[in-house]
C-alpha cells in the first residue's frame, strides 16, 4: 500500500537544533494510512529526535506537521496519544518493579479498571499472537516479552500511527519474523507504521517506503524493495564501506578456558550463569550472541574478575584465576571492556589521561612505589588517541565530553594497547557510527592476528558473523556449544539464541 492520494501524517520543514549540533534540518516526508514507512539512518542521523517531535516529547524549532489534514503540534505525549499516535521505544520505557497491567495502564490516557484492563490485555495479546500474562512483573520478563508489553500498550489505544524505534535490536531472528507478521496485520487493518532502523534487510523485507536521513537531513526517499542493501547503505553512510579483512593465520594453544562457570547475578533482575564452558585459542575470535539480559553482563563480570568464582572455573594460559580480582587478571594478560561506557568502562568526569591510567596502570607500569608517572600516562593516553583515531580536542578532556563512538574507540583502544593475551569485550560497537564500528572491528581482528584470544559478546549478529571464527549464544544464562561461524545459517543462529521464546506456541493455544 503506497500512499497515492490520502495522507495520514505530513511533516514539512521540521528543524531542531541543540547547542552545538543540528539534529534535524528541514526534514519533510509523508505517511499514508496503512503504509509501513522506514526512517533509515545511522546512529546520530537524527531519527530519534524526529520521532520524538512527532510524539510530542521534543518541540521543533520550526516546521509544521499535519495529521489527517489538520494542523498537528502535540505539546506532550498525552495529546499525541489522544490523536492516535503511539510509540514503542528503543530503550524500553517500562517499569521493572511493576506488573504488566500496571505498565500498560501508565501508557494510556484513560485506562479502564485494572481487572477489565487485564482481560483486555489477555485478549488483544492472543489476537496478535503475542501472549502476555498481565500479572507478571516486567522485571521477570525476557527482552522480547518486554517489547510485547510496549506493543500491546500501543495497540490497546487503537493507534492510527505506530512509531517503532529500533524494535528488533533485542529480538532473535524468529521473534523478528513474528513481530513482522504482527506489523503486517496492523498495516492491513489500516494502521500506518513509522519504522526506525539501521538494519537494511529488515527494511527491505517490511517497508513500503523509506526516508533516508544523514546528519539530520533527508538525503533520499525510495522504495526499499527496489534497491539493494548496498545501495541503501551507501545512501545512509554517504561513503563506501570496506568490510574488515579477516586473518587466515593458524590458531595457537588454548589461552582462555572456562569450565562449569555458574555464578549468581549481582542484580535482582539479572540472569545467573549456569554451567558455562568454552575455550578460546590464541589468535581466535569467539563471538557470543544472545538477546539482551540473557547473562551477557554477568559473563563479562565473571571474566573480568568483578565477580569471583572457584579458582579453576576460569584458567588463563592454564593457570587458575577464577578467584582473582580484575588487577591480578590484567597482570595475567586478560583485559576487559564492558558494555556501559560511561560509569563502567570509563569514569565520566575524569580526563582521558586519568581514564587511561585506571585500567593501564599495572600492565603499562604507570605507577611506581605508589606514585603516578604522569608523563608516561600522558604518553600512553596520547598513543591511544593517535592509534585509534579518537576525535578529541586533547587528552585532558573529560570522558563524558566525547561522543559515544569516540569514547568507545578510546575504551577499546585502551585495552588493546596493553598488549593483552586475552581480550573480552561486551557490545563493542553499540551506538557507534558505521565508520567507527568498522575501525573497532578491524582493531579486534588485528589484535587476534597478533596472537591474542578474543571474546566478543554482542547482540549484533552481523557483527559477529563478520569477525568471529567461532560462534556461541547465551540463552537464559546457558551457553551453547561454540560452532565454527562459517556455514552457519540465520535459522540455526536463531535456534541457538532460544528460538521464538514461546511466541509461536501461542498460535496453537487459541481457546
Amino acid at each position: 500500500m503506497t500512499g497515492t492520494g490520502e495522507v495520514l501524517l505530513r511533516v514539512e520543514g521540521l528543524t531542531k537544533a541543540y547547542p552545538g549540533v543540528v539534529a534535524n534540518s528541514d526534514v519533510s516526508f509523508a505517511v499514508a494510512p496503512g503504509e509501513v514507512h522506514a526512517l533509515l539512518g545511522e546512529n546520530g542521523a537524527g531519527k530519534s529526535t524526529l520521532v520524538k517531535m512527532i510524539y510530542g516529547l521534543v518541540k521543533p524549532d520550526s516546521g509544521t506537521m499535519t495529521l489527517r489534514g489538520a494542523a498537528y503540534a502535540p505539546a506532550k505525549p498525552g495529546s499525541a496519544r489522544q490523536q492516535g499516535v503511539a510509540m514503542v521505544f528503543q530503550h524500553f520505557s517500562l517499569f521493572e518493579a511493576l506488573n504488566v497491567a500496571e505498565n500498560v495502564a501508565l501508557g494510556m490516557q484513560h485506562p479502564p479498571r485494572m481487572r477489565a484492563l487485564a482481560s483486555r490485555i489477555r485478549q488483544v495479546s492472543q489476537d496478535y499472537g503475542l501472549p502476555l500474562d498481565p500479572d507478571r512483573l516486567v522485571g521477570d520478563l525476557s527482552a522480547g516479552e518486554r517489547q510485547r508489553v510496549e506493543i500491546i500498550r500501543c495497540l490497546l489505544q487503537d493507534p492510527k500511527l505506530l512509531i517503532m524505534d529500533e524494535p528488533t535490536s533485542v529480538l532473535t531472528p524468529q521473534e523478528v519474523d513474528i513481530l513482522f507478521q504482527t506489523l503486517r496485520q496492523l498495516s492491513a487493518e489500516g494502521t500506518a507504521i513509522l519504522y526506525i532502523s539501521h538494519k537494511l534487510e529488515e527494511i527491505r523485507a517490511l517497508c513500503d517506503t523509506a526516508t533516508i536521513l544523514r546528519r539530520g537531513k533527508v538525503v533520499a526517499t525510495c522504495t526499499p524493495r527496489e534497491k539493494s542493501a548496498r545501495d541503501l547503505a551507501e545512501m545512509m553512510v554517504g561513503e563506501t564501506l570496506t568490510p574488515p579483512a579477516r586473518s587466515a593465520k593458524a590458531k595457537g594453544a588454548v589461552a582462555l578456558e572456562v569450565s562449569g562457570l555458574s555464578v549468581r547475578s549481582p542484580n535482582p533482575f539479572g540472569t545467573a550463569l549456569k554451567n558455562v564452558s568454552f575455550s578460546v585459542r590464541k589468535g581466535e575470535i569467539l563471538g557470543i550472541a544472545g538477546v539482551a539480559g540473557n547473562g551477557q553482563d554477568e559473563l563479562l563480570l565473571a571474566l573480568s574478575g568483578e565477580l569471583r568464582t572457584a579458582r579453576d572455573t576460569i584458567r588463563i594460559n592454564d593457570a587458575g584465576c577464577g578467584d582473582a580480582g580484575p588487577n591480578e587478571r590484567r597482570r595475567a594478560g586478560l583485559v576487559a571492556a564492558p558494555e556501559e561506557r560511561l560509569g563502567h568502562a570509563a569514569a565520566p568526569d575524569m580526563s582521558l589521561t586519568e581514564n587511561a591510567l585506571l585500567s593501564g596502570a599495572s600492565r603499562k607500569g604507570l605507577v611506581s612505589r605508589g606514585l603516578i608517572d604522569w608523563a608516561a600516562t600522558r604518553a600512553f593516553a596520547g598513543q591511544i588517541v593517535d592509534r585509534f583515531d579518537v576525535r578529541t580536542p586533547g587528552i585532558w578532556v573529560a570522558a563524558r565530553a566525547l561522543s559515544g563512538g569516540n569514547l568507545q574507540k578510546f575504551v577499546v583502544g585502551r585495552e588493546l594497547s596493553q598488549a593483552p593475551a586475552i581480550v573480552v569485550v561486551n557490545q563493542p560497537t553499540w551506538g557507534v557510527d558505521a565508520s567507527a564500528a568498522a575501525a573497532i572491528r578491524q582493531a579486534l581482528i588485528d589484535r587476534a592476528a597478533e596472537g591474542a584470544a578474543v571474546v566478543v559478546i554482542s547482540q549484533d549478529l552481523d557483527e559477529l558473523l563478520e569477525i568471529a571464527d567461532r560462534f556461541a549464544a547465551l540463552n537464559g544464562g546457558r551457553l551453547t556449544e561454540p560452532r565454527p561461524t562459517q556455514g552457519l545459517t540465520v535459522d540455526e543462529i536463531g535456534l541457538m539464541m532460544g528460538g521464538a521464546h514461546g511466541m509461536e506456541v501461542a498460535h496453537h493455544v487459541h481457546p
Partner: protein
Amino acid sequence: MDLSAINPAVLIASLMVAAVPIMLAATGELVVEKAGVLNLGVEGMMIMGAVCGLAIAVEAESPAVGFLAAAAGGAALSLIFAFLTQVLLANQVATGLALTLFGLGLSSLIGQGYVGIKPPPTPRLDFGPLTDIPVLGTILFRHDPVVYLSVLIIAAVWALLKFTRAGLILRAVGENHDAAHALGYKVQRIRLAAILFGGAMAGLGGAYISLVRVPQWTDGITAGAGWIALAIVVFASWKPWRILLGAYLFGGITVLQLNLQAAGARIPVEYLSMSPYLITILVLVIMSADRGRAALNAPAALGRNFHASR
C-alpha cells in the same frame, strides 16, 4: 524488680501513643521515597513541626491550630529541600543532612521564647461507654484524635499506592524516572508534591512530641526520632502497614524500657535507653542480609536526580 507493677493494657495503650511521632514521619518519608527521593532531613522537619506547633498552639490557645501550623512548618522546610534537589539538582543526601542541621538550629532560635511554657492540652476523643470496657477500653478508646488519625493516614497511603492511578504514577516515577518522563508524566512536579507531603507528615509527628508527649519546648526535643523514622521505612521495606508494625515495635521497646526502669530492673539505665536503637540496627542488618528481596521493594530511582536531557 517488681514486674507486677507493669500493667499490659496500659503498656499497650502507651506504646500506641509513643509510636505516633515516628509513624507519621515514616509514613511521609515512605511516600517521598516511593517517588524516588531520599530526604534525610526528616529530623529537621520534625523539630520544625514541633516548634511551630507549640508556638502557634500557645498563641492561638488551640492544639488543633497548632497541629495545622506544624504541618505547614514541616512542609515549608521541605520546600527548601525540594527547590535545591528538584530545581537545582543538588545532591539529595547532602541536602537532607543540611536540612536536619538547619532545622535543629532554626527551631532552637524560634523556641527561645517558649521554654517552660505549657501548650494547651490536646483532649481525648470521647467514646462514651466504650471507654469503660475493661482492657479493650484502655487500649483502644482512651486516646487523642491524632493517634487514630495516624492509623487512618497509613490506611489512606496504602490504598492510594495500591489502588489509585495517582499512586501508580507515583510509584512509576520512583521506579524509572526516564520512562515516566518519556510517557509524559511531570517527574519534578510529582516529586515536589511527595516531598511536601513528607514534610507535612514529619511536622505533624514533631508537633505530637511537643504538644502531647512531652508537652513543652526544649532544644533538640525530637531526640533522633526522625532518624528512627528513616530506619523504619527501610525496615518496612516500603510497605505502609509494616510502618505501623515497625513503629509499634519501636514504641513498645521505648515504653517497656521506661517501665523496666520504673520497676527497678538491675540493668544500667544507659543500656535500656540505647536498646531501641540497637534493635533498629539489628533489624536493618538482618533485613539487608537478604539483598535480593529488599532491593526488589526499594524504589529503583531512589536518591537519583532527574534531569530531562533530551
